[in-house]
């Protein structure tokens, strides 16, 4: 359900967004070279021009499907914890939300694919959640608002043993109070 929502809204647009958002797709290659970024092959379907605004229906932008804030997940390349350019606008939107809503609390769950040691994979997931937390704090969120943890390979979103699936499982989820 969450996956369908993500694909449906991924190409929707982001406020103050400088990068062109890309349609979400699984990474085609693994690349461990420093600075290597997976190149998306599907072109974006809509330009990033629509502003984030509170939904007039719910009044809660976190639950408004037309708001970037309704999205929670970002994806990582193999053995990497850097936030890929296509996810920067999403992280920035949540950083701005946390800065403007000091009472909001967030749990960031980092995840890893299934290959290798469960405990080492917990470490990889932690590195990813820590990277998201650090970026959110640079955007004005505070330490007390965010706890970054890891679920390692224990909560796969996709159960097959192939790279498409592993990409979906190398994930960071930004969850607000009441969402976990």
């Amino acid at each position: 359900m969450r996956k369908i929502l993500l694909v449906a809204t991924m190409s929707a647009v982001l406020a103050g967004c400088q990068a062109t958002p890309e349609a979400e797709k699984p990474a085609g290659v693994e690349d461990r070279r420093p600075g290597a970024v997976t190149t998306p092959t599907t072109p974006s379907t809509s330009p990033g021009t629509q502003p984030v605004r509170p939904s007039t229906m719910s009044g809660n932008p976190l639950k408004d499907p037309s708001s970037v804030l309704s999205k929670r997940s970002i994806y990582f390349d193999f053995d990497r914890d850097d936030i890929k350019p296509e996810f920067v606008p999403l992280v920035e939107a949540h950083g701005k939300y946390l800065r403007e809503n000091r009472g909001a609390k967030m749990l960031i769950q980092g995840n890893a694919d299934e290959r290798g040691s469960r405990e080492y994979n917990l470490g990889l997931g932690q590195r990813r959640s820590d990277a998201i937390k650090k970026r959110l704090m640079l955007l004005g969120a505070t330490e007390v608002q965010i706890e970054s943890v890891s679920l390692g390979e224990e909560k796969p979103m996709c159960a097959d043993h192939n790279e498409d699936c592993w990409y979906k499982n190398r994930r960071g989820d930004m969850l607000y109070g009441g969402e976990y």
Partner: protein
Amino acid sequence: MYPLLNPLPLPRAFRAALVAFAVVWGEAHAQLSIEITGGGANQIPIVIVPFAGEAALQPNLSDVVEADLARSGLFRTLYAGPQSPPVNEATKVDLATWRARTADALVVGGVYPAQGGRYEVRFRLYDVPKQVSLGGVAYTITPAQARATAHRIADFVYEKLTGDRGVFSTRIAYVVKAGPRYQLQIADADGANPQVAITSNESIISPTWSPDGTRLAYVSFEAKKPVVYVHSLATGQRRAVASFRGSNSAPAWSPDGNRLAVALSREGGTQLFLLNADGTGLRRLSSSPSIDTEPQFSPDGKWIYFTSDRGGSPQIYRVSTEGGAVERVTFAGDYNVTPRLSPDGQSLVFVTRSSGRFQVASMDLATRQTQVLTDGARDESPSFAPNGKMILYASDAGGRGVLAATSSDGRVKQRLSVPAADVREPAWGPFPPN
């Protein structure tokens, strides 16, 4: 009447433990089934004669002893069949006849009613070629202790004939995932008598036995993040001993059972800490920008072996428990994780990746000579038997998690599986108290 056999009741702690399990734990539904897929080079041919009067107890003692010895891969069990007249530990056996049937060892015994619904179990082991008795033991037991008694007989035979202490009376812990449900289970080393220690809708990983076998430490995700618990087996009570902000994982007991090494993210990253087994006295052990995890004490308590990617790829390192300089232990390949020291401290098993396959390898710490012991593609979580002769690990068969065991020389292989469930995260328990 039996001058060589001194009645020896099972120790009180052992009896108490049996009672406690029955009271506190639920029965697990599916039992591990064990398949042997290899054998030792020189198996000892042995005959276990059905014990006189053993039909009074369930299961048959001789069947359990025979299955234990066969499973070790070090014995070839020969069929004896019913004896007429019945043979017991007091019979003057004709060893020449058994020699002619190519047996090197012979076990005979009997089961006798005793007072208060109890039974006396007596047995004797013979060295057939030398035509001498290697001794025997008598136990006074309740019917419920039949299986445990058979394991102790197998331990006696194993030790007399191989020189190493047997592990048939030990227990194993492992996690069973069936659908969305996770269970931490504990069973006898032969997979019998599985008991559920805890059931959860979230994952449970890294169970590890306290050195005295009374507690398990493990990581549970029931709080939507990893938290380290210590669980008392006799009472079923547990305590979150590491539940700090961030992730808490990878518990390892100190040899004296007083302390735990853990991996925590409370100060950023994943770093090693020490704390008392009750959760007090937190002290940071490693300080690096890398992932430092999977700590494991050396048996002498002087070193902590651990996994770190400080060199660019995950490798095994060690540091004194007092802190200080870190030494790298593994060098070959770009993925060596999950260090586990043998009980004698002389070798290290770990998980290594080559050509995308994860397998269990063993390193002689003195010579640094390394041997890959397993042949799966997703082998992980190795755990030594307390005698150091077998290594239990998690493997994969047709996409389903199974447990497997290998002898420390890689020759004997077993596979342990539960029908229609994933089994993972095995931990072999310590020797039972004497």
